[in-house]
Every structure is written in structure tokens, then in C-alpha cells.
């Protein structure tokens, strides 16, 4: 490691010449190798948000129920009964491409730590996955590894994986997206924060030993991939869910005492970011003695220890008189516990190793003078309008093709590998409702949880797509009867140094902000993942939204399976919008046109009406209209309930395929007992609603068409993933 520190090494570490100049002026000297490492990870895109910060400020983050918004390890909202929900979603895209199994597994582990570090017991995991063309062998390999990785980690730690989404597009061939979300629950008055306090207090390291894995992972996640990405495998961390489970239990046991002053997990940039952020937020200094760090390998250097991203580690500041108590809890779980430093009044981070000072950096400028870029951006040109599109296939055959296509087929093959019931609180499992519903222990309440984004909409019109992602999350929560409260966002984009990518990002934020404001659905946590490109080809932009809502009575959670004998109503205005629809892509073979517009006022009005119908017992089931349009929604309801549905001919002036497969926003299918009464209530509040059909027989019957038996429908729906993945 005896390399000269200079501008060229700084560039290898991901720092620009200008950024390296700033390092020199802060220190007033040439940094040591370790110091350069610290600056480079703290100022990496992944840790510093240097390209996105100016835009993220535009997102609304406040509401009366928000306890902690962005800036903490995760967002915190009050959910009633004195409880708080703590949640966040984070990307692990780059590692999951290099090594799908460990990349995905450690993504789950990392987001779990962000949540339990705040004092919450994790109660649910979700994930948003985007894969490349399923016909490619590499895609199959990625799917297999990612699904196993998510499953093995979540199953072992005993947190149910209750929901998520999976999409495919060739734009993800060289860059899959793996976004993991964790939701936890804690008493609202027992939230743990990361700001260190108390000069002289011990800084304690707990969890796994530090090894050489994941060194410089945050920098790797801040660069595009080239053909040599395989060589980056050593920068991927290795997860140990068993260790994580012990760490959860030990931390929660310690958190029940008064020992902890502050706590933070060691995530990206490991010991560096946790110590710098804790001390920085607390306005104190920190002295670390690396000789005391539990080490897995011999002869690790200061640089390696400071930049290691070994998993399942936490850093805490303790009350000095509680050190013995804390040690006994971690010994019970056979976890390492080491006092590795103290808080100081110097305002500096000082790292010692083998009697030498390896780093001595003032904390304030490290944070305050972190680069902040107003990157040039260019707006995405408005897509050309979609002309009339004729139906080459007919409604019946189109439905069978759509319901079996990669983006709409059953995800059973995936969710059968995720333990969805551990904990005994899962009210609605995957596929049974528009959002997962998980009850809060010792309360009548439940949380409704969803993950949503439609990247093809975002590519065509990032502003409309950003608004749509937020609106769809709100809609999915509403469709269970829950009141939407807040979101976490995971922004997956290409290289921000390209103006067109920055333009996508800025527009998506604008759209999201408008929707969050209109729907009272603030952003409380999030993550930005740039440089999702391989060899210069960017992904479809994906501002993935993790939404959270609350049901006062868990028993009122709606499902999508319609009760026997009920009538189906369509709530919301249907315009037959086919631009960017899955029908257009899968049946007409085109990815053209603008995405469906989102009318936020109508969205709110329709959703508030639907929620009222569910909570007053007037709607027995509900399913929102999303990918594939009205007919796909109806078919999914028939399959979920194993019931036949008879549809009326739509009395509306548009082609049948536009009515059935258009992806108009703000629409729901309700199953009701008394259609006339519900239609009258809708009219009274100016919500468009119409009769669609009824639950009857054993087939899906379109007026005048050949009925589709449930067996045929199910076979078409279930085939794709098992046949792709070999059972």
C-alpha cells in the first residue's frame, strides 16, 4: 500500500482534480493513503448525494404524522396506539449485477440494519426487482441468484418478505435493479438516533469482525460498469443472516435499557461513514484506535479497516456507566463487543493504528465542503402522440397473451421462495391484495405496504412517470382500505454527468413532489442510485416508491378476490389510454406514445371514495387498474377468488381494446353487493363509476366472446416463470 498520494491516485479513487484540490486545502497538506480513502468514500456519489441533493430538496417531507424525515437512518411516522413505523428502501444494484446472490442478500441485510438501528423490530421486507431480457441466459442467472439471496437472508433473519415487484426490460440487461425495503415498528417515544453526544463517552463496535470484503464498495457503486465489471467481485460484501439475527436481538435487548446514547449501522463506507456521521451530526470529535477493532484477517491496514464494508456491524456511543451491562448482552449472543474509541472535543476524526496516526481530519469541512453539483440537465422531449392503433389479435387472445407475459405473469415462483408468514402477523400475503397487510402485535392496527414504479412511463415522460409512481403506491394502499401515510423513494438512474439523465432525474422529482403534495404522502427516507449504465447504455429510469399506510382495524383489510354474487364496478374515468401500455408493447409490438396522464385531484377524489366504500363495508373486494388495464385487473380478481366473472359490453365510445387494456390512472375495480347504492354515492361526490359485470359461473365471459375458463386463464398466468427457471 506504499503508494504515493497524488491527483492521479485520487482519480483512481473516484475524486476529480477539483475535489482533490479541496482535500488539499482542507488538510493544508497531502493526505495520507487512509485519509484519501476516507475523503473518496465520503464524497462518493453514493454517500454524498452530490449530484442529487439540490433536487431532493424539492420533495415534500413533512406532515403532522411524520416524526423523522430524511436525514436519519430511516423515516419514522406515527401510526397510532403510541407506535411508530420506521422504514426505508435502498438499492443494491451494482453488487447484484457483479454477484447476484450476495449482492441481493447484503442489500436486504443493509436495509434491515438501517431500520433496527433506530430501535424498531423489523416486521416486513419488500423488494423491487428489474431484470433484463428473460431470453438471455445471464438474466436467468441473475434472477436465480437475486431471488435466492433475498430469500435466504430474509427467511433466516425471520422477517417476512411480504411484497414487491418484478419487471423485465432489455434496458436492464447489463444493470439489474435490486431495491430492498424494510419496515419496522417501535414505540414512538423510543426512537434511536445517530448524533453522538457526551465528550469522553465510549465508542463501541458490535457485531461481526472486520474483514477485507467490500472495500471501496461505495465508490464502485458510484461509477458505470465497463466490460471489466467481473473483476470487481472482491468489492461485493458477503452476508451472514445468522449474525444479523443475533445482532437484531442483542440491539433490541440493549435498546430496552438506557445504555445507548446514539447508534448507527456500518453500511456503505463502513467504519468511516458511521464514525464520521455520528460525530459530525453530534458536533463532536472522535478518536478511534484500530488495534481494538475485531478483525477477521491478519495484517489489515488502516485503509482496509476504515473502508471495509464487512456486514452485520454497528457502532454505538454508550453511557460510560452502562458499558458492562451492554457487554453482557452482546456476550449472551456471542457477538463481538469492543470499545474502539471515545468522543472528543477536537471536532476531528483521529484514527490511530499500531501507534501511528493514520488519519486526522476536521469533521466540519469534510461534511460542509463536500462537493455539491448543479449538474447541467436537458429536459426529456415530449413523446409524440400515439395515433390510432388497430387491434391485431382481438380482446380474448390479447388478454391471454398479456396475463402470461413476463411483466404480468404470476410471481408465484418468486414469492414461494420468500417466507411471508414468519412472525404470525401477515394479514394479506403476496397476490391476495394490492398491498401487503401486516398486523401490529398487541394492537388492532395493521400496516399496508407496497412498492411501485413503472419505468417505461418514466422513460417516455419522467415527470408524469414520477407522479404516476407515487400515485400508484397511494392507490395500492388505498385499495386495501388503509390510509396512505408516507413514502420512501429509491431513485435508480443512469450517469448524472449526462444532461439527459439529469433531466430525467429532475423531472421525476418534479412529478413526485406534485403527487406527494396533492396526496398528503410525504417522502420520509430514500436513496439515490446513479451510474446505472453499462458500456454507456442507461437503464429505464426507475424512481421506485415504497409506500406505507395504516388500517385502524386490521380486520377491515380488503382483498382482491371478489365475494360470490357480487357486482363489479369500475371507479374512475376511462379514456382508453394506450400509449406506453403493456398491450401496446406485447400485442402491437410498440413502445411508443406518452404515458397515461395522472390527474392528481381525481386520483385523490376517487381513492378517498374507494377507501370509504371499503371501510363502510360496501365494497367486498377491490383491485386497482394498473399494468394491462381493466381486463387484466378483472382477470386477476377472478384468479385470486377462483370465481367466474361475467362482463357487460362497455357502453362507451371507444375501441374495445382501448377500453379493456388502456392504462388510465386513478381507476379501481370494486366488488359490491349493492351496485345501485354505491353508484349513487359515487355520483354524489362526482366520482365517475360504471357497472362492469358480476361474479357468476366458472369462466371469464366477455359479452359476445368465447368464454375463457379459469383453467385456461390460470395456465396462461402461471406458466412463464416456472418454465423460464426450470420449475
Amino acid at each position, binding site marked *: 500500500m506504499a503508494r504515493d498520494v497524488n491527483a492521479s491516485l485520487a482519480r483512481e479513487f473516484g475524486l476529480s482534480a477539483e475535489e482533490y484540490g479541496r482535500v488539499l486545502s482542507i488538510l493544508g497538506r497531502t493526505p495520507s493513503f487512509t485519509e484519501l480513502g476516507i475523503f473518496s468514500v465520503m464524497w462518493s456519489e453514493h454517500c454524498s448525494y452530490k449530484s442529487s441533493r439540490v433536487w431532493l430538496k424539492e420533495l415534500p417531507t413533512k406532515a403532522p404524522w411524520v416524526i423523522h424525515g430524511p436525514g436519519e437512518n430511516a423515516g419514522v411516522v406515527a401510526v397510532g396506539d403510541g407506535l411508530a413505523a420506521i422504514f426505508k428502501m435502498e438499492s443494491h444494484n451494482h453488487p447484484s449485477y457483479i454477484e447476484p446472490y450476495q449482492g441481493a442478500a447484503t442489500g436486504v441485510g443493509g436495509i434491515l440494519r438501517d431500520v433496527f438501528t433506530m430501535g424498531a423490530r423489523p416486521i416486513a421486507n419488500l423488494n423491487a426487482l428489474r431484470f433484463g431480457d428473460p431470453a438471455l441466459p445471464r438474466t436467468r442467472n441473475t434472477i436465480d441468484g437475486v431471488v*435466492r439471496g433475498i430469500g*435466504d437472508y430474509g427467511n*433466516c433473519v425471520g422477517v417476512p418478505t411480504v411484497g414487491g415487484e418484478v419487471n423485465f426490460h432489455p434496458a436492464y440487461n447489463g444493470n439489474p435493479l435490486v431495491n430492498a425495503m424494510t419496515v419496522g415498528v417501535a414505540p414512538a417515544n423510543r426512537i434511536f438516533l445517530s448524533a453522538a453526544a457526551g465528550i469522553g463517552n465510549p465508542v463501541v463496535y458490535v457485531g461481526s469482525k472486520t474483514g477485507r470484503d467490500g472495500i471501496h464498495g461505495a465508490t464502485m457503486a458510484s461509477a458505470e460498469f465497463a466490460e471489466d465489471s467481473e473483476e470487481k467481485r472482491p468489492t461485493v460484501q458477503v452476508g451472514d443472516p445468522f449474525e444479523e439475527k*443475533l445482532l437484531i436481538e442483542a440491539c433490541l435487548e440493549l435498546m430496552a435499557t438506557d445504555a445507548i446514547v446514539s447508534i448507527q449501522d456500518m453500511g456503505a463506507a463502513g467504519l468511516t461513514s458511521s464514525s464520521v456521521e455520528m460525530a459530525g451530526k453530534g458536533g463532536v470529535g472522535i478518536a478511534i484506535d484500530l488495534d481494538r477493532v475485531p478483525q477477521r484477517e491478519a495484517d489489515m491496514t488502516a485503509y482496509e479497516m476504515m473502508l471495509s464494508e464487512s456486514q452485520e456491524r454497528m457502532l454505538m456511543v454508550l453511557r460510560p456507566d452502562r458499558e458492562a451491562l451492554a457487554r453482557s448482552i452482546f456476550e449472551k449472543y456471542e457477538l463481538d463487543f469492543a470499545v474502539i474509541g471515545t468522543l472528543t472535543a477536537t471536532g476531528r476524526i483521529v484514527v490511530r493504528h499500531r501507534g501511528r496516526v493514520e488519519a486526522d481530519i476536521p469533521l466540519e469541512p469534510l461534511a460542509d465542503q463536500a462537493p455539491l453539483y448543479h449538474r447541467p440537465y436537458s429536459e426529456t422531449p415530449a413523446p409524440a402522440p400515439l395515433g390510432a392503433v388497430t387491434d391485431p389479435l382481438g380482446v380474448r387472445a390479447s388478454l391471454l397473451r398479456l396475463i402470461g407475459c413476463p411483466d404480468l405473469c404470476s410471481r408465484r415462483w418468486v414469492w414461494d421462495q420468500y417466507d411471508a408468514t*414468519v*412472525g*404470525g402477523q*401477515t*394479514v394479506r400475503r403476496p397476490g391476495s391484495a394490492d398491498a401487503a397487510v401486516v398486523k401490529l*402485535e398487541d394492537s388492532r392496527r395493521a400496516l399496508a405496504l407496497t412498492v411501485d414504479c413503472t419505468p417505461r412511463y418514466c422513460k417516455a415522460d419522467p415527470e408524469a412517470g414520477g407522479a404516476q409512481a407515487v400515485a400508484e403506491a397511494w392507490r395500492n394502499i388505498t385499495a386495501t382500505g388503509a390510509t396512505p401515510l408516507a413514502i420512501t423513494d429509491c431513485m435508480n438512474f443512469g450517469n448524472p454527468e449526462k444532461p439527459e439523465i439529469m433531466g430525467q432525474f429532475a423531472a421525476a422529482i418534479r412529478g413526485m413532489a406534485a403527487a406527494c403534495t396533492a396526496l398528503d404522502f410525504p417522502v420520509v427516507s430514500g436513496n439515490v442510485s446513479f451510474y446505472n449504465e453499462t458500456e454507456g447504455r442507461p437503464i429505464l429510469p426507475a424512481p421506485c416508491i415504497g409506500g406505507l399506510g395504516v388500517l385502524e382495524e386490521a380486520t377491515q383489510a380488503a382483498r382482491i378476490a371478489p365475494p360470490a354474487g357480487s357486482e363489479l364496478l369500475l371507479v374512475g374515468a376511462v379514456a382508453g389510454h394506450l400509449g406506453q401500455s403493456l398491450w401496446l408493447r406485447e400485442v402491437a409490438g410498440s413502445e411508443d406514445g406518452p404515458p397515461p396522464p395522472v390527474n392528481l385531484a381525481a386520483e385523490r377524489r376517487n381513492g378517498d371514495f374507494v377507501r370509504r366504500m371499503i371501510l363502510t363495508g360496501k365494497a367486498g373486494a377491490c383491485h386497482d387498474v394498473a399494468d394491462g388495464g381493466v381486463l387484466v385487473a378483472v382477470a386477476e380478481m377472478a384468479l385470486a377468488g377462483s370465481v367466474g366473472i361475467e362482463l357487460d359490453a362497455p357502453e362507451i365510445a371507444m375501441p374495445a381494446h382501448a377500453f379493456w387494456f388502456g392504462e388510465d390512472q386513478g381507476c379501481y375495480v370494486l366488488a359490491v353487493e349493492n351496485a345501485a347504492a354505491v353508484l349513487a354515492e359515487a355520483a354524489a361526490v362526482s366520482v365517475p363509476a360504471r357497472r362492469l359485470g358480476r361474479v357468476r359461473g366458472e369462466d371469464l365471459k366477455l359479452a359476445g366472446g368465447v368464454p375463457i375458463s379459469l383453467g385456461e386463464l390460470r395456465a396462461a398466468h402461471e406458466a412463464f416463470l416456472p418454465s423460464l427457471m426450470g420449475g
Partner: protein
Amino acid sequence: MKAGIVVFPGINRERDMAIALAQAAGSAPRMIWHRETDLEGLDLVVIPGGFSYGDYLRCGAMAARSPVMDAIRAHAARGGAVLGVCNGFQILIEAGLLPGALLRNASLRFLSCDCWLRVERTDTIFTDHWQRGAVFRSPMAHGDGNYFADDPTLDRLEGEGLVAFRYVTEQGEATTTACRNGSVRNIAGILSPNRRVLGLMPHPEDLVDPLMGGTDGQPLFHGLAAALAA
């Protein structure tokens, strides 16, 4: 009924089990950290599901060699009731309290889904709240639940009536497709010769509340509570 739940490092379904037991018995079970060895006064010892010691080495192998297992063996030898579910079943087998082995699922993938189970005999403390031949639904969630034993052992188990549950279709037929993990002869749960020790892979404790989708699993716990009432 005085019930205790043994918690090894990595066990993760102890809370589910506690809910099911408390609901049936009217009082919370005792939680027993694996370093404790005093099981005095317990009518029922439960080893719940999870990943004891991370399933490293072999599922259940390390837990089976921990000190509390001697206490559990002594409890069983006294005729005490023992229930092992999922990882608990794997641990009971590794500890020699039940015969056979639990191999990787036939698909070589983790399987989390509902299954249907048929009750094979009802004159036990675990099953007497069911009718003979009753079919009930249960969640299951495991990577290594593929029950295997050699033919003489299987013939002995069958001959002595020690198969408690089999994977079946909703209609009660023991078909190959109904047995998704590949278990030999569709075996989902087995009993000790004195029928006081039961091990099974599925999780009836996760289906004891209509809110969570049903109460199919309740008879197991109500049966135990009634049989072991002081």
C-alpha cells in the same frame, strides 16, 4: 398446561409459537434461552422454527449438541411432551429423538406456501382434536423439509402408526404433486414410539387466527392444552 419454548440462537418462529400456545392455554409460555437446562415443571417443551446456528454445518446439527438437549431428552424419557416444528423437527432428528433425516427440498429451493395435511391418527395428545383422516391447511416455509428414512425404518413407522401427518391434496389424496418438498411417502410429521414427541415441518402455529387467513392449526394447540391441563 405449562409450556416452554426453547430458543437457540437463530430461532425465529418463537413469537408465532408463543401466540398460538397462549391462545390455547390462556397463559404465556415460558421462553427458555438455550443455555438454561432446567425444564422442571414443564408439561410441554417446544422447539420452534428458524435457523438455529444459521443452519450452518447441517440444519439442526449444532443445536442438537447443545446442553439443553440433554434436559429435553430427560424430559422426553420421563414421558414429557415435546413438539418440534420445522427447524425444531430437524433438531429432534439430529438429536436422535426421532428417526430419519430431512434433506434439501426436491426442487433445491426454499418453499414457502400453504400445504394440506391429513391427520393419520387421532389418539395422541397432539391430534385428538381432529377427526381421523381430517384434512387441514397449514403454511410451510423451509429449504430442508424433504423427509427421508430407509425402508425398514419407514415400514416400522407405518407399522407402529407413528406417522402423524401426510402431505395431501385438498381432497385428502397423498399424491406426488401434493408433496412439494419431495418427502418420502408424503410424510410431514412423525411421532416417537410413546407418541409424546412430535416433529413436523409445516407451521400450524401460523394459522390460528381468522385474520391471518384461518384457524386450521388451532386443533393442535387446543388438543395439547386439553390433554396437558393440570
